[in-house]
């Protein structure tokens, strides 16, 4: 049953096929959510899939939102032991909760340059066979902006350099951002730029019909199929509902649940 539920999101992301080469290699995934529908469950599901025994992925998890114990607790319920993965050097955790740049603009940039350097060095320091299977996850971009004292230009520069890593090392970049933070802005440049950068856009939003007890929200997965090393795979859009439960997440097409 659980495998079947995973497949709807996995199918949309192309993860239901063979795990090597990793379908998300060299691709940028953006998860957008809002207050009513948090998208962190998508991030957790991707962590779990990336660390499955059949794949060789290494995750560099840059955490601005929560400490390691938070993710450990959640992933344990999903059937994944992050402590073991951390010890096996498959899950590398960057605790960025205390990153606070001083007021000067230059130091904000400096802080992000150092973070980029840390990521780059970590990738370069991996053994040869693992270097091609890196996934960088950032939770979440709005907090990176806070850490940079609102310097969204620096955040964009940082994201650009991370994007360059996907090209240089064929790694994947998965980020989370909150769409409603920027909804009052006339021109929400940061989130728009991120949408342009992304190859796959996963949007978690409430139903157009409002609240429901059996359905927590809907996911729209837009796979842009931008030119990838394997050639275009075509633009595809998937839409389905979900319900977040204690130990799993159920995904289903509208009206298919009894």
């Amino acid at each position, binding site marked *: 049953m659980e495998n079947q539920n995973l497949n709807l999101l996995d199918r949309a992301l192309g993860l239901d096929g063979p795990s090597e080469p990793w379908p998300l290699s060299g691709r940028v995934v953006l998860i957008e959510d809002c207050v009513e529908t948090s998208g962190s469950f998508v991030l957790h599901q991707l962590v779990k899939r990336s660390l499955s025994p059949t794949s060789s992925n290494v995750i560099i998890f840059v955490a601005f939102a929560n400490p390691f114990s938070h993710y450990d607790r959640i992933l344990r319920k999903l059937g994944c032991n992050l402590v073991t993965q951390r010890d096996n050097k498959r899950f590398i955790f960057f605790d960025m909760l205390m990153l606070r740049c001083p007021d000067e603009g230059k130091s904000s940039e400096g802080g992000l340059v150092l973070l980029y350097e840390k990521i780059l060095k970590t990738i370069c320091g991996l053994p040869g066979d693992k270097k091609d299977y890196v996934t960088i996850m950032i939770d979440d971009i709005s907090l990176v902006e806070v850490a940079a004292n609102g310097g969204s230009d620096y955040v964009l520069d940082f994201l650009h350099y991370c994007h360059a890593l996907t090209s240089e090392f064929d790694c994947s970049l998965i980020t989370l951002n909150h769409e409603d933070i920027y909804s009052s802005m006339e021109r929400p440049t940061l989130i728009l730029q991120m949408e342009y950068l992304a190859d796959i856009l996963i949007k978690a939003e409430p139903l157009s019909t409002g609240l429901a007890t059996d359905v927590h929200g809907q996911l729209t997965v837009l796979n842009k199929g931008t030119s990838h090393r394997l050639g*275009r795979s075509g633009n595809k859009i998937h839409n389905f509902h979900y319900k977040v439960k204690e130990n799993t997440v159920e995904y289903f097409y509208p009206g298919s649940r009894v």
Partner: protein
Amino acid sequence: MADTICRTLRDGGLEGEHAPALTIKDSKASPFGFDVFNYVLTQLSNYILAGKSQSRGLVVVAYSRSPSFYVDLLKRRGIDIASSHDWIHILDCYTDPLGWKNWLIDKDISQEASSLSSFCQDVRNLDKLYSLIIEQGKGLIGQGKDRFSIAIDSVSEMVRHASISSVAGILSNLRSHDQVSSIFWLLHSDLHEIKFTSVLEYLSSMVASVEPFNQAAFGQRVDLENLSMLEQNFRKGKFHVRFKRRNGRVRVMCEEILVELAGIKFTPVLSEDEIINQRLLPKVQFNLQLSEEERNERAKVVLPFEHQGNGKPIQIYDGRRSLGENKEEALVSTGKLQPDEDSGKGQIIYFRDSDDEMPDSDEDPDDDLDI
């Protein structure tokens, strides 16, 4: 029409004239600008290689993709630049645009440039960038009167690091350089103020906009009704091009874009009827379309008098004039049919109670009631 753009870039500019400049602009609702850019890049490359264009070389200023991306792209289109690249050079503003790699303590991590591409590590300095572009271009074409073309893959990225006026300045200078044959760039219009987009449009001799196929679907929360429209928006789009002729005349053309596995395709716009039929008809199990015979029958139906629209003035018999007074009027109360209608279908026959009856007025007929 997209080919018209490519031909205009291929032909370049006359002596003493500014080089033709193309702005490709798109938005989040229809993000195919980069596909169009790649299409133009490939076409121009083919013309250069075949010796059919005014320019002998191409400088690609790469902000949003790595040089290897363009190598792969052109290779997939049958142009192998890895082995022979004396006609193309890629200025790499993507890998290290701000020189962050210079800040790194461990220099071993930095990359090396190749003969096909060179780094620009300070995209904030547009004067330096201008010199680099011209230097690379001249390096491709050598001494003499030959010219080269320039492609900038994201002016949106360029303006993030510099002011609007300096970006406008560099584009204008490149356009007016006597060794530049043609220039084109990509812009994401929703990232900027209208002022910036307008400035670039004024600088361009051609503006190609990519617009969503279904405008209404954009911006709404996804539901079953707009999902298919959204899906369509990510496979199709509209392509509007505005050409500014030398004589000052402006010409606007339109095409449709189809994004496929192999790349982007441009097709002529369908007629209005076909578009309406395609878009408005929901997918159901019964036939909502009319056959030819049904269409003819429908055309023969006589509509109620006020909708006949046969060109004659519509007169409503109000009961005050005699019937014989004006025979040319269309008097429905006589029950006469129009001479060109031959089927006796429904008609409204109204007989006034008497000729004394006043025509309908604003008075309330119940006014005489004593309530």
